[in-house]
């Protein structure tokens, strides 16, 4: 069957079978940033946004996302123009093998959209469904808190009518997004 949906602001019609998960369809169509860790929703490596909400795509039937707007890690920032959350992960040495990281970053961006000033405990709770084997979470949590700070200072500058400036380690990657550096990095020209 064919499923129509929007992936990273692009309207797509994709081939799918009834039993496919959203992850199956994403990976088959080249969005391999979402990782297959368990197929049961237990690890969080496949986390993407569906209509702005973080969703574990391996247990999301593709039939449920008909006409939905899906955002994957590929739709966040580019290597030379990272989203502030991506930049904060890099600057804080928050990743090692990186396999859990796309899911971790999608979960973190979703958190910061609803809660731009989370406490450390709130970050830990938001990430508690996303496992990591390498880091012990410490630098990941620090990166998310750092990202919140960067995005808030960008917002403050933009709201002030000024140009966002490059902060430490190129935090200005989110300058196009004047409303919290969220997921509106593309297609907003």
């Amino acid at each position: 069957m064919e499923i129509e949906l929007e992936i990273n602001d692009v309207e797509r019609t994709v081939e799918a079978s009834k039993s496919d998960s959203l992850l199956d369809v994403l990976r088959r169509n080249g969005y391999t940033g979402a990782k297959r860790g368990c197929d049961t929703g237990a690890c969080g490596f496949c986390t993407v946004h569906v209509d702005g909400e973080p969703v574990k795509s391996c247990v999301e039937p593709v039939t449920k996302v008909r006409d939905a707007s899906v955002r994957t890690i590929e739709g966040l920032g580019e290597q030379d123009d990272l989203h502030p959350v991506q930049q904060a992960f890099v600057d804080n040495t928050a990743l090692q093998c990186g396999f859990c990281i796309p899911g971790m970053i999608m979960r973190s961006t979703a958190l910061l959209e609803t809660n731009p000033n989370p406490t450390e405990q709130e970050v830990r709770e938001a990430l508690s469904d996303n496992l990591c084997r390498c880091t012990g979470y410490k630098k990941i949590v620090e990166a998310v808190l750092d990202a919140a700070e960067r995005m808030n200072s960008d917002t403050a500058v933009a709201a002030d009518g000024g140009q966002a400036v490059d902060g430490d380690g190129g935090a200005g990657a989110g300058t196009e997004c004047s409303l919290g550096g969220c997921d509106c990095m593309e297609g907003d020209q």
Partner: protein
Amino acid sequence: MSNDDETPKADGGTASQSETVEDGRSEEHPLEWDEPENNDKAPDERDSVSHRTEKYDDRKLVTGQAKYTADYEERYPDLAYAAVVRSDIPHGHVTDIDTSAAEAMDGVDAVLTPESDAVPDTKYTSAGQSYPEPSPWDMHVLNKHVRYIGDPIAAVAAEDRATATAAVEAIEVSYEEYDYVTDPEDAFDEDAPQLFEGSEVENEIVGHDYDCNRMAHIGGELGDVDAALDGHTHVHETEWETIRQSHANVEKHTSLAYTNEDDRHVLITSTQVPNHTRRQLAHLFDIPIRDIRVTKPRVGGGFGGKQAMVVEPIPLALSLATDRPVLYEASREEEFYAMRSRHPMKVKARTAVTDDGDIEAIDIYALSNTGAYGSHGMTVAGNVGSKPMPLYSKVPNARFEADIVHTNTPQTGAMRGYGAPQGTLALEGHLDEVARDLGLDPIEFRRRHHMEVGDLDEIAGMMGGEGANRRIRSCGLDECIERGKDAIGYDDLEQPDEDHLHRGIGMALSAQGTGVAGDELGAAQIMMNEDGSFHLQVGGVDIGTGADTAFLQIAAEVLGCDEDDIIVKSSDTDVTPFDYGAYASSTTYISGMAVKKAAEDAKARILDWGAKLLDEPVGDLETGDGTVYSETSGDSVTLEDIGYEAAYGDDEREHILGKGTHCTEESPPPFAAQFADVTVDETTGEFEVHKLVVAVDCGVAINPGMAEGQIEGANHMSYEMAVSDGITLDEKGRAEVADFDEYGLPSATETPPIESILVETHEPTGPFGAKSVAEVPTNTVPPALSNAVRDAVGVRIREMPITAEKIKTKLDERET
């Protein structure tokens, strides 16, 4: 082939019998080390090393552009998918495999059984170790004699994953069932069900006695332990038990095999050991080594679980049978029951201590459960003694022995720490207990005996291995202890107001090695491009640790170029120089030193060209900031100018190449001091870990951010060993864990705050003073937490994991 009469030069060094330390060792292992001047740079002279350089692959990883093995799927439109039929019974003989229904299914390309032509019947070990392998050849790719629930019997290749899975389900296996045994103490008996006839195993290991399921026995002694135990009043004996921990690699074992247009058999695979895997595949399939290409893309964690050829033969056999590329991606359930795990052990510790608190003897015995097969069995057990015991180098008498026993349970293998966590729990828990019994401060008690600079490590030496009598040339233990104490608040611990809550602090020390002494090889090549940039080709294997970045920093430090001007290509056996692989905490030290040598070789050629262009003597020149400059005239020429001149010059031309290869008899120990702060509720036994602090001496941290990450991650894994059940088994040895939901990998909310402290020393044998970092903090949380609980409420938990129930039981016992 047999290792019976030899001293296997195993990971960490173990020997068939005790050896006395020969005279003249101190001359063989002098304290002074002939260190090149450029290796010992003051912190402010380091341009790249010691900087928090951005990890080489990070931008690709955070944007989802990095490729792991399964991400290559889309490149092969003709790809077939593999699935495996595994034993449902703990022990037996396969009498029939009915594949007819599977073979009749649409979309099934091949069904392989032990009888199929494409399936090798050669014996082998999956352990990815040096050669000759210090593990027994006791495995087959597909099995008729099955020895645990999970043993592979048949394999399928199909058009898609669902068809492959359905075909596996359609295969009917009939068995003749045998008696089985799952407990190692029961198994270690001539009357127990026997897993192997001795004649079934090739390359047997020292001390094997298959009549009682023993695959190896090892040991060594320094001095006279029995005499010391007889002569002292304070003899303590304690027994400890560790869990069967899963690597829980986030990326499952995944391997893609095909034969390309040049008739080369290619494996894109998630491995820590590309060169060993190539050699092992050549052995199994009787294909020349040169015709196999093993290449490693990004790897989603290894931790030892991929220091083994766990899955590669299956997609290769299926690919040869179908003439198609085949991808095998293990399921998460298979990860827990059919891949590898940490050896569960029972470890006994005994000491003899004088009235003055001097330790006269340490005696350790380990019974290791290697599961159905013997990969890494002997060498892991050897490290139970050879890693933790040398910490107490002032102790005159020491003995270690281990029996490694088969059971009908899932396979074990290498795992971060490699035996040291089991030994460290026993020794550090034991010494804490002794100190408390004798009324001594546990820290001061350790301080009187621990290793320091100048010591000759005779305790590791007692178990053999050429390089095991190490001279200690760097040791930051005292500073680790002091800074750890400060960070945890050791001297000003406040008790909770509530009477039923008690707070305590426990500590533990640890040492590891840096590579396998006398049994490592790394190599690298650097090619200069005409624009002054470089290609670094290195066999060293980045499994997510950041090794590529460390290589880059080492090369940039030597070449004096911008880090962005180096392209790293690692771990492709057709292209990159040879390397033993990522294990034994060797990568930065061994492969990194090979990179340094390659860079120095290239630099010598660069300076030569610089001398020509600047018309000044080589001795006056140095590299830095992307130039060759004269320290006398101040003139300089860019690396780009040199690159163009070398490639396109009028008179003379040269491709500037640097080569480096490194092996060593040295394996300097990194050190750790671990602290745990816990509050225990004496009414329930429930406890809360407020903080873990671990201070680590890893020499010079090539990249401090990455080193901290290694320490924090290792401590998280170590914490799991202290508080989680691991992979539990039912009565038949079937794993009761099939998914992350059922496995106790601590989540972000379940992980206590971890503070890592880098204590910098300078190790003269390592690149720019570095030694290893990634394993030593894996060893320490179980003893530190056991010691903290003891400190808080006075009861001792020796059997991991530490649970509220066990504490409560002990508290109740104490009251009655």
